[in-house]
């Protein structure tokens, strides 16, 4: 688990980390605390099976931190097969560490954000899959909601079944897995941010 910070605790850090684990069907214990989940056990996502979490490291969300974090975890256990990364620069750094250890072909790196640079990295195989978000749409809907509140006083309702308003997210990969909805990098680069 390549997380964000080692000098502050922020919601984006634990929400992404714990969201990834929840998706795999791993109990995260305290939802607002990274790294307190059981290190070994059974996951229920997909076909299910046994898992082992080698460790959680901070990356500062950047290439250099991503590389150092990945190197350290590989030192701890060279048989890592899946790497969660907080964002795409950290993923790119992790890839450099994997390449240097000759493991870039055997390890799946997943990430979050879907910026254009990140989508390019999915295309070139650095990142296996990334969850794309849409900041322009968030801003658009946010301003609309403010206008609505100012005019009518009506607050936006949470999306059905969620405790927040869902502005949408799509999984970007060129190697679609059965039973998982995803879009290709070609589609994703049409709507990525930071062109």
């Amino acid at each position, binding site marked *: 688990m390549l*997380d964000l910070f*080692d*000098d502050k*605790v922020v919601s984006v850090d634990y929400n992404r980390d714990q969201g990834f684990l929840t998706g795999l069907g791993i109990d995260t214990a305290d939802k607002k605390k990274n*790294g307190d989940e059981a290190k070994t056990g059974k996951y229920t996502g997909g076909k299910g099976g046994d898992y082992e979490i080698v*460790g*959680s*490291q*901070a990356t*500062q*969300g*950047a*290439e*250099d*931190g991503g*590389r*150092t974090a990945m*190197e*350290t*975890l590989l*030192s*701890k256990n060279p048989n890592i097969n899946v790497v969660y990364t907080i964002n795409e*620069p950290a993923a*790119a*750094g992790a890839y*450099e560490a994997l390449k*240097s250890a000759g493991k870039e072909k055997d390890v799946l790196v997943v990430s979050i954000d879907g910026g254009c*640079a990140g989508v390019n990295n999915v295309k*070139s195989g650095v990142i296996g899959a990334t969850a794309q978000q849409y900041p322009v749409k968030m801003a658009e809907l946010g301003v609309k909601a403010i206008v609505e509140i100012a005019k009518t006083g009506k607050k936006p309702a949470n999306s059905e079944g969620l405790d927040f308003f869902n502005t949408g997210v799509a999984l970007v990969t060129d190697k679609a897995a059965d039973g998982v909805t995803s879009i290709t990098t070609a589609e994703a680069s049409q709507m990525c941010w*930071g062109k």
Partner: protein
Amino acid sequence: MTQQQTAGPPTGVADLAEEFLDRQTPLSRIRNILHRYPALSPAIVLLVSVIVFGLLNDRFLRVENLSLITQQVAVVGTLAIAQTLIILTAGIDLSVGAVMILSSMVVAQLAVNNGVPAPLALLAGLLVGLGAGALNGFLVTRFRLPPFIVTLGTLNIFIALTLLYSNGATVRGSAMPGMLTWTGSTFLLGPVRISTGVVLMLLLYIAVAFILGKTAWGRHVYAVGDDKEAARLAGIAVNRVLMSVYLAAGAVLAVGAWIQIGRTNAASPNTGVDLNLDSITAVVIGGTSLFGGRGSIWGTLLGALIVGVFRNGLSLAGLDVLYQTLAVGILIILAVSIDQWIRKVKS
């Protein structure tokens, strides 16, 4: 000291008595030795921590892991050279990381977006480093501003320039000419994998150790840091020495930029956020005094390695990342306390 003072009572007796007492306790003998060799205490800390972490996790002492630690400290170790030079003059540089990143962005963008040949792009990076050093040095010597304030200001200036220049975009290593990422290449020396960046860093340490120890300029740096006024009275052109130190630091930072590009295989304005302070951490743990005039460049290398060993060792031992930060904090306090204790020695 005049002869009268040492020979005549009562000071002479007191001095003799103290010297006599000093010889009696093993503790003060240790202190004398540590005082004479400033790199000795960080060397002991490094040795002990390597042994302890080796006992905690048997993977720690593997050659591959130790080689990784050297690669992980290459950038901060290089920046810490520049930081040591400045701290030896009783200054401090909060902008080292920002200068390094600005330099790396200029090198990468010139080479990739403007088609400048790699050697010329690296030369431009060196000029950025020298220019930044010149700005810091100019403000410190001409306006007589404290280095802390100057570099706090230029830190923000360099960060802003980096983002304005790069537009926040990362330049990927795959688009760069091979020479720029050469510092990230590795070779085998027996069973040990060594990166070119680490070799470059070590060469810089050897060069700076030689210059500080064996040249008049090196003596002047220590003299200016120890007591500016005394140095001036001894005929040292204090401002010229200070300016040259900031320029030298800028040049070192440009090399650091090259090493950073190789290590991350990219030039990114997001990297190195902690490097400004991490370089100071390495210098302090390495036993160099923040009051200037005392310290050793080899201590700094040991300091950088100690931090690298702690972060790696604590991770392998399975400690949460927040505790790693805690450990580094305790390490700093311990290092400075030991330094204070050693400095109490009678010279």
